[in-house]
């Protein structure tokens, strides 16, 4: 296998990994937007918060799965609390009000995290059983932890798909996305459903934040940098569609990773970086031009 082919293969793996991370965060965002018509920027704070809790819990217990559980559980509690105390009052407001309120809450959470954990970056080791590398190709040994992230992400995507199509909750969520007035008229407790969706979304963001924590430097800015990409994902995928978010997340992950590698090689060091940082937005613009509702719109 030539080295270019090896590079391409490795970049596709990297792109998939970025894609599944984006999917975990974006799926919650798109569900909440689809069913409750709520644009929730605070979602990024759940991702950050989970990473901080995970790092702390792993430091205390030394047990990776316990850290994952602690991160998800505490984030779900936080999400339920914000839903009951704040989000409830925003459901019927227009998007601009929601944007301002949830952005304000995001700033509030970021500052609260700084007060609790301090300004410096935190870091966490990968668990021993995932610390090695796997020889995928003769020339390529790939970190096991990155492969694990991709596999977990794909498994969660499959579970979500299954739950969405084969459980009562999934059916109610899909019904709510299409027509929530009718759903309420049929006697489904819509507010309870909202809280459930909100918590599931936060749990997925928490899983993403926790899994990425051993790879990156955990700091308050980590959620903000990925939030914009997630908004791109839900725009491309179609609001409210989990399937759309999945396809769009993988596409955005691949476009971003491959663009970062091959655009500078083609266009040089001056134009290349500018083009590669634009690539996902160009991709979004083209998608919207061809399909203004996104790839898989959940609304009729």
């Amino acid at each position, binding site marked *: 296998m030539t*080295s*270019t082919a*090896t*590079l391409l293969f*490795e*970049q596709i793996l*990297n*792109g998939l*990994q*970025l894609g599944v991370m984006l999917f975990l965060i974006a799926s919650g965002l798109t569900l909440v937007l689809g069913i409750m018509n709520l644009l929730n920027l605070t979602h990024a704070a759940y991702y950050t918060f989970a990473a901080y809790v995970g790092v702390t819990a792993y430091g205390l217990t030394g047990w990776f799965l316990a850290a994952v559980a602690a991160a998800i559980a505490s984030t779900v509690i936080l999400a339920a609390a914000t839903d009951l105390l704040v989000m409830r009052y925003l459901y019927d407001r227009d998007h601009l009000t929601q944007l301002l309120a949830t952005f304000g809450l995001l700033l509030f959470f970021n500052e609260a995290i700084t007060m609790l954990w301090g*300004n*410096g*970056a*935190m*870091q966490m*080791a*990968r668990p021993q059983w995932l610390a090695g*590398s796997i020889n995928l190709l003769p020339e*390529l*040994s790939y*970190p096991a*932890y*990155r492969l694990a992230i991709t596999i977990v992400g794909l498994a969660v995507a499959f579970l979500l798909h299954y739950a969405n199509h084969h459980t009562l909750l999934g059916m109610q969520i899909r019904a709510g996305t299409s027509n929530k007035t009718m759903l309420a008229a049929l006697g489904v407790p819509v507010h309870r459903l909202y809280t459930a969706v909100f918590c599931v979304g936060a749990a997925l963001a928490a899983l993403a934040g926790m899994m*990425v924590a051993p*790879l*990156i*430097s955990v*700091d*308050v*800015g*980590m959620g903000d*940098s*990925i939030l914009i990409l997630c908004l791109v994902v839900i725009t491309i995928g179609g609001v409210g569609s989990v399937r759309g978010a999945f396809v769009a997340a993988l596409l955005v992950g691949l476009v971003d*990773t491959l663009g*970062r*590698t091959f655009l*500078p090689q083609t266009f040089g*060091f001056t134009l*290349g*970086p*500018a083009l590669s*940082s634009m690539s996902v937005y160009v991709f979004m613009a083209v998608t919207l031009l061809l399909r203004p509702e996104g790839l898989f719109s959940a609304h009729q």
Partner: protein
Amino acid sequence: MDSPVHARMGACVLALWLTTSASYAQDAVKIGFLTTLSGPQAELGKRHLEGFQLGLEMKGGKLGNLPVDLTIADDKLAPEVGVEQVRKLVDSDKVNFVTGVVFANVTMAASKPLAQSKTLFINSFAGPSPLAGSSCDPYFFGAGFQGDSTYEAMGKYMSEQKEIKSAFVLAPNYQGGRDAITGFKRYFKGDVKGEIYTKINQPDYSGEIAQIRAAKPDAIFFLYPGSMGISFVRQFADAKLGIPMYSGFSVEELTVNAMGAAANGAYSSAVYNDDLDNAANRAFAEAYQKKFGRRPSIYAALGFDAVTIIEAAVKASKGNLSDVESMRAGLRAAKFDLVRGPMHFNTNQFPIQNFYLVQATAGDGGMRMKTIRPIFTPHKDAYAPECKMQ
């Protein structure tokens, strides 16, 4: 009924306060410390200020027998906020010196109003290249270092190593990142096998690491300050490519413990390290450790040095702080023994000083940076010939 009495009393107190503060102002050195104290980079500004305040404290709060009146301002890492704060420092606080700015974009913006008001700007950290070259300015002293110098030092060191015939270079895609690579390439004579500029605050570098793997360079050189560096170094070490890491301002006192074992053995170039063996640094490092319970970073050290430099200007004025020209002349002629080592100003009012090779080393109580040897003794920046100032 008694409100007019109160009002008169209030006026008297106010008048008294105004006269005392005005008379106080005449015999005090007024310093405006403008730095980044909020936002994600606030830690750097805080450390810089800690060093400066420790310096003042160790001089007994006086410079050249005059008490110091310190005003602290936050630039929020925004050039427009920096300019606003500088105007306030000059117009209402009537400061004699402005110092403390850590980020070059704020420095550039702040230098203009200070030059117009002929207020001395003792730029205590990285100095941007325009101010060292064609736009040099009589009231601006680049008392920290010219921005390219750290990377030039690493370029020189790597060129001298026989086993390094090629390098792969990476930096964030902003002016500072591009300047770093320009400075590095000015001295690095080997083959640059790849050059990548990444998005600012990019959290994941797997795509870049794959390209390094494919290019098979003898070494990598990068500039990734703060949390970008922590992410990059940890991910690079995880990939186990066996390629040595060289950097400037990335693997350093403030980040090396967060990088942990991933940084072990990584080389860095720096104008200061806490183990430098000179009298000024021994006294400073000990006092800093005692006061804050940790080793001083370059931010603290350069803040401390700014006090020594301002003191020299005050002494040159012989107590007349409105005599800006004699303060300038004094600084241009001075030979300093700073905690970073000997330093004097070049014709462009930027330092001629040493740069050192440092290495991340595991020790008891975690990682630390150790000085290996000097690289430049001393170094001048490349822009001085473009400066036509007298």
